[in-house]
């Protein structure tokens, strides 16, 4: 392997549906990030070998994937980017609100597979076998999630503000003037700072109600910056501040936020700094409290809740609403100030618990236990057909289904309160053999992350301090660079660490590839592949075998014919498995497998 360019810069991207971490080179003039470009003759030889390997797998209805460990000699700039993307992965696998988003994504895939006449039971979901979540429930929730991850560019001039020419986003709830709260002068004199109630549009006639901020920077800019506290802005701000702390850089004090990119990474932090900065004598504690607040926001209780009023519903399901309430209400609580010798994670966990008790929110511990129960239920459902019907197993399942609970008891809450009843159920994971369902490995990872949260409260909120431990337990399952798949450096340490769900790196990798491949099914696009949808190269394209959906060149067709690879790829495998592929493709491959197996 060639030495990488020391000054080479990369950037990263994290996908909350496929869980892919993509790294991209910034300096295009530099050599390849990790290995030199192949010559044409190399490509031919290697392509042929890879085609033969892929064909071997195709004959067994399996996928060909080449994977390697991330090399040690990556450019120095890679470390903070990888930290940033790992952080997003940890947010996703350990926070009930984000775990819930993923489950709904799987439910939507199941619904679309069923609509296409396919086999939804190959995908994990809340419902068992061929049953589906009612579409009206699913659609409403998914649209809200889209609003949680949308960018809302809303910079306006002060003239617009004076004359009331405001973006329509304000009209949905109320007029601006009735909903803003001036939080007073920030210590550096940057004001005004207002918290606004917004209605984030996501589908005709539908809004996600939540708070946002309006900031001005009179000394540096004429513009009025407005942004929501939705999931995207919250998580990017938390990731950016964590990354600054991880790199030992000073915490940012932006002079203006005219650019949308800056608003995404710095907006919520700047609001927090203005609101709470004067209450904290230490900037480090101000940052810890910010990370604790964002973490508590995405730790809402979303399972089996029947809100008594719309206020509770918004506090649990709308991240921008929840953060707005939390940030504002925290002014009434003592600042977070870990004492000398205090473990920061413990201090953060106590701070979060203290707020929840004071404000009447379910505690993070309770919310995460409920999610653990729900995840256990979904994962067990994925392989229930393999569980022997012994009296012991039946008793475990009955506990789980609530048959042994007093009538009318909300079973998830009951099991979260009596968590010792859940632990024996994990013994059933020994029967999780055979081909896993799509999403099963990711859900298993999430369950393990729930347990880590319960046993190590506060650590996920402060990844700049606890990244070593978190990285060992929960490495990124896949890093994609230029069409090559890499395992995170620390993945070797992650296996068999005693968490409930047994994880293997390769099975998780295949799960991610399946999720990426079938992602367009979310929109009903059975003939599309997620790699194409995202303009990413997959193993087959990178190997020179081309993309059967995009069309093959004559050389690619020739190589594929030579080894009988035909149109096999990540997409063909999953589409035949789910029976969403065109019929002629399904028939062709099934016949071939029958011949191979001698039936």
């Amino acid at each position, binding site marked *: 392997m060639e030495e990488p360019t020391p000054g080479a*810069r990369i*950037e990263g*991207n994290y996908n909350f549906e496929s869980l892919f971490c993509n790294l991209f*080179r910034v300096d295009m003039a530099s050599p390849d990030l990790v290995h030199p470009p192949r010559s044409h003759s190399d490509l031919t030889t290697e392509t042929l070998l890879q085609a033969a390997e892929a064909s071997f797998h195709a004959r067994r209805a399996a996928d060909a994937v080449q994977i390697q460990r991330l090399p040690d000699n990556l450019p120095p700039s890679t470390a903070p980017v990888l930290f940033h993307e790992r952080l997003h992965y940890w947010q996703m696998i350990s926070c009930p609100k984000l775990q819930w988003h993923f489950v709904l994504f799987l439910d939507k895939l199941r619904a679309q597979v069923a609509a296409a006449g396919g086999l939804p039971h190959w995908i994990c979901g809340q419902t068992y076998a061929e049953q589906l979540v009612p579409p009206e429930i699913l659609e409403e929730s998914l649209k809200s999630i889209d609003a949680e991850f949308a*960018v809302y560019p809303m910079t306006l001039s002060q003239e617009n503000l004076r004359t009331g020419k405001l973006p329509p986003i304000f009209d949905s709830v109320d007029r601006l003037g009735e909903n803003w709260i001036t939080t007073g002068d920030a210590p550096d004199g940057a004001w005004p700072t207002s918290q606004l109630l917004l209605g984030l549009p996501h589908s005709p006639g539908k809004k996600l109600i939540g708070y946002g901020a309006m900031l001005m920077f009179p000394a540096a800019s004429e513009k009025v910056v407005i942004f929501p506290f939705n999931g995207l802005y919250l998580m990017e701000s938390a990731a950016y501040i964590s990354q600054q702390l991880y790199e030992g850089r000073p915490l940012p004090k932006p002079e203006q936020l005219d650019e949308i*990119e800056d608003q995404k990474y710095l907006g919520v932090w700047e609001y927090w700094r203005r609101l709470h900065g004067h209450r904290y004598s230490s900037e480090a504690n101000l940052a810890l409290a910010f990370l604790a607040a964002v973490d508590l926001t995405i730790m809402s209780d979303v399972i089996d809740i029947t809100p008594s009023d719309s206020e509770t519903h918004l506090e649990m399901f709308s991240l921008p609403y929840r953060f707005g309430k939390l940030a504002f209400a925290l002014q009434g609580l003592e600042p977070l100030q870990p004492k000398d010798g205090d473990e920061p994670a413990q201090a953060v966990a106590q701070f979060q618990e203290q707020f929840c008790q004071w404000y009447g929110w379910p505690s993070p511990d309770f919310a995460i236990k409920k999610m653990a129960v729900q995840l256990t239920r979904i994962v067990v459902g994925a392989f229930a057909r393999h569980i022997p019907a012994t009296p012991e197993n039946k008793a475990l399942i009955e506990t789980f289904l609530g048959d042994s609970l007093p009538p009318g008891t909300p079973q998830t809450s009951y099991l979260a309160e009596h968590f010792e009843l859940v632990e024996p159920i994990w013994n059933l994971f020994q029967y999780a053999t055979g081909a896993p369902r799509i999403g099963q490995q990711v859900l298993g990872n999430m369950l393990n992350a729930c347990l880590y949260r319960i046993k190590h409260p506060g650590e996920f909120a402060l990844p700049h301090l606890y990244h070593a431990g978190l990285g060992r337990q929960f490495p990124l399952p896949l890093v994609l660079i230029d069409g090559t798949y890499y395992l995170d450096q620390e993945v070797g340490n992650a296996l068999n660490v005693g968490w409930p769900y047994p994880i293997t790196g390769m099975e998780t990798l295949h799960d991610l590839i399946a999720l990426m491949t079938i992602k367009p099914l979310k929109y009903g696009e059975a003939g599309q592949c997620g790699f194409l949808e995202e303009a990413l*190269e997959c193993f087959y394209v990178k190997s020179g075998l081309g993309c059967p*959906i995009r*069309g093959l060149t*004559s050389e690619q067709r020739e190589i594929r014919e030579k080894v009988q690879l035909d149109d096999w790829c990540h997409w063909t495998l999953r589409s035949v498995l789910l029976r969403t592929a065109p019929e002629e493709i399904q028939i062709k491959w099934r016949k071939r497998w029958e011949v191979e197996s001698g039936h």
Partner: protein
Amino acid sequence: MDSFDREEVKSFLDLGEQELYGLLVPERARQQLNSPGALMARGKNIFLSRASEVRSIVCRQYKQRGTSMKNTIDLTVLVATALLASPAMLGIPVLPMAALLVKIGLEEFCRSVTPEANPGHG
């Protein structure tokens, strides 16, 4: 050739190269979590990964019909029209790519391509 809105074409030409790279990222891939600068980097990766196929499609058209065009909007429309049906552009927004090529300079981009060059694979 006039299937594109000229105002829209102009709005793309008014953008900087960095912004145009970011706009090459497919819409659905933009609503994700990106590190600062990732969209631009991803767009550059997309541009490079398609450059060879795009060159074989665009440069033949350019050498045959575009070298005399002085109006950048006309030139962008010519390039976008050529790219529109190409499998190489599957999922990738065409107008930002065309505007980017015009801003980079088609003369430079197509230096190695002759008008008779093979238009590419089927």
